[in-house]
């Protein structure tokens, strides 16, 4: 009678290295995606972000600060 099989099956060194490389690639891709979305947001907003009307609350706060 054989002993209990080990589960999950341990990974070989090659499999561990491959998994590490895949994880790094996914992390880099996600990082690049974040940067792309950030850059696209800035491009699409353009200068409009500086020209938008202030909200009533924002204007009130700003008024208070300026006084």
């Amino acid at each position: 009678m054989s002993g209990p099989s080990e589960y999950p099956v341990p990974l070989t060194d090659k499999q561990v290295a491959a998994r590490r490389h895949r994880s790094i690639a996914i992390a880099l891709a996600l990082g690049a995606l974040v940067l792309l979305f950030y850059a696209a947001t800035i491009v699409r907003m353009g200068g409009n972000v500086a020209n938008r009307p202030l909200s009533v609350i924002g204007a009130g706060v700003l008024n208070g600060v300026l006084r």
Partner: protein
Amino acid sequence: MAELGVQADISGARDTSSSVGDFFELMKPRVMSLVVFTALTGMVAAPGSIHPVLAFIAILAISVGAGASGALNMWYDADIDAQMQRTVSRPIPRGRVSAEDALAFGSFLSAASVLMLGLLVNWTAGALLALTIGFYIFVYTMWLKRRTVQNIVIGGAAGAFPPMIGWAAVTGGVSVESVLLFLIIFFWTPPHFWALSLYRCRDYERAGVPMLPVVSGPAETRRQIVLYSLVFIPIAISPYFIGLGGLSYLAVSSVLGAVFLKLAFDVRRITEGREADAAAKKLFLFSILYLFAVFGVMLLEKIVLRVLA
């Protein structure tokens, strides 16, 4: 020469030693390069302008979408890929990537590329990319490829959409010019693939794919190659007549078009022995050069015009 059918792992069992390169190979990088090139041409040829960052995002999304559909195609066709010499070295038949992982990879990238293009560029381009991926997977790969001899004629539309997507990324719409760019690739596809299938006929026969030489025979395939080439070349030249291409475009598309026709007639004329295979191979390779050349000249013309303007 690659051995056929070896280590064909199409069962869906996970292979935890898949490398990043294996996944990249799933995306059919050579096809991706053609897609990127034609999409870029569509983008530059389109009237109007697009911010370079958005242009980069559009090209990236289109290429990732093309790669994703390549991965899904490899997932679905893993069984026939394992039987064909041309495709037996692909990651799934070789057992380097599991079919299950290829499906997940392709599905995720398909959704991500469409969302990225739609959200960051515009939804016309995003919808066209979704249509392209859906057409390639559901219409060509799953429906037509194993059922009809017209598989690559109709399925060729999937490869013809990228310049139209590039155009839509800039203009937000579809126009006669972008439809013409679509038609160039659409009519280029049959002579291109039938030339390949002439000298890879046994591969397709073994895999049970009803390519034209397998179903109708080499003689009919040669006739169809000439007919489609006669339709294709005038379409490839026509951008000049609607102002999409300039004089250099006219010159290149006409002169190389004449060479294309000559090679097509060579395929029709030389029907026996290794010379016949060589003629088909020559047409196949030249057809790739032709497409790169006409789109390349159009791209260069537009860049020069923009620089001079």
